[in-house]
């Protein structure tokens, strides 16, 4: 494999890992907020 290709692969992998991390963090916050909203509403549906 060409050195440039390997560099590109690493860059893309890093980019995807960062985006995935941000999305998972956002999901955790969202689930937490949904839980609080459900508790406030009186225990869900």
């Amino acid at each position, binding site marked *: *494999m060409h050195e440039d290709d390997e560099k590109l*692969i690493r860059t893309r992998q890093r*980019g*995807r890992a960062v985006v995935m991390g941000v999305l998972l963090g956002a999901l955790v916050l*969202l689930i937490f*907020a*949904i839980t609080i909203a459900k508790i406030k509403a009186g225990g869900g549906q």
Partner: protein
Amino acid sequence: MTTTIAQASILPADWRDFLALTKPRVMTLVVFTGLCGMLAAPVAVDPVLGFTAILCIALGAGAAGALNQWYEADLDAKMKRTERRPLPAGRMDRQSALHFGVGLGAFSVILMGLAVNLVAAAILTVSILFYVLVYTVWLKRRTPQNIVIGGAAGAFPPLIGWAAATGHVATLPILLFALVFLWTPPHFWALALFMKSDYAAAGVPMLPVVAGERATRLQIGLYTIPMAIAAIAPWALRLTGTLYGGVAIAATGVFAGLALRVSTRSTGAGDAMRPEKRLFAWSILYLFILFGALVVDRWIG
């Protein structure tokens, strides 16, 4: 092309290509009509649950868009408008697109069902399956009526938004569904008139390709009539106030004027297709205006 496909099998796709699979521009209208459907409902929605519902609608639409691109990679490669998408351009392998689409769709439905309600989740499921199986797989390559029936897929968001807020469906969201459903043919056929060569090259049986320009123009005019009725019906049936009624009558009048111009003219070779482009552009703005007016009308009423 051989080089790019070979690269796609080795290189992991960039995250921006996954984003492009979701058709973000189409998603804007889907999110807006879904949000308006929710805000037009006669109940207060918890902001977090409301946000979650809209997120699920957006993710569901994104999943449908990704699966559409997965299935249509060969068609997309033949059209100028779509040849630079991740799959035809060789920036992603098909399996990644399929996994992404199925995963995103399942996630959106499960989240909607758990966080919002089952009615909204069920309609969201139907809308994704309708777009992918009925429109993309079944109709698009077989009949010039593809976008007439397939238009239902894009008409679901206001219904889902309303169901997310209330837990059921009612007359007003059904009329909104009918409005978007009947708006789709004139909207897409206006586009198809000035993108005809693209569709013909790809072998997609769009109405101008199969039945010719004259028949398409006539159909644009004819479909505008029931669309106008569906647009004004919420006010005529006293489901909205006069603000929506006034805006709907004015905006529909402009739409009808542009559609009349398109449906009664004939073109020669090299025509710039300005009236068709104007109708297409107005049709997009038209939905934004109508749904925006619906929400403002609800708030001030």
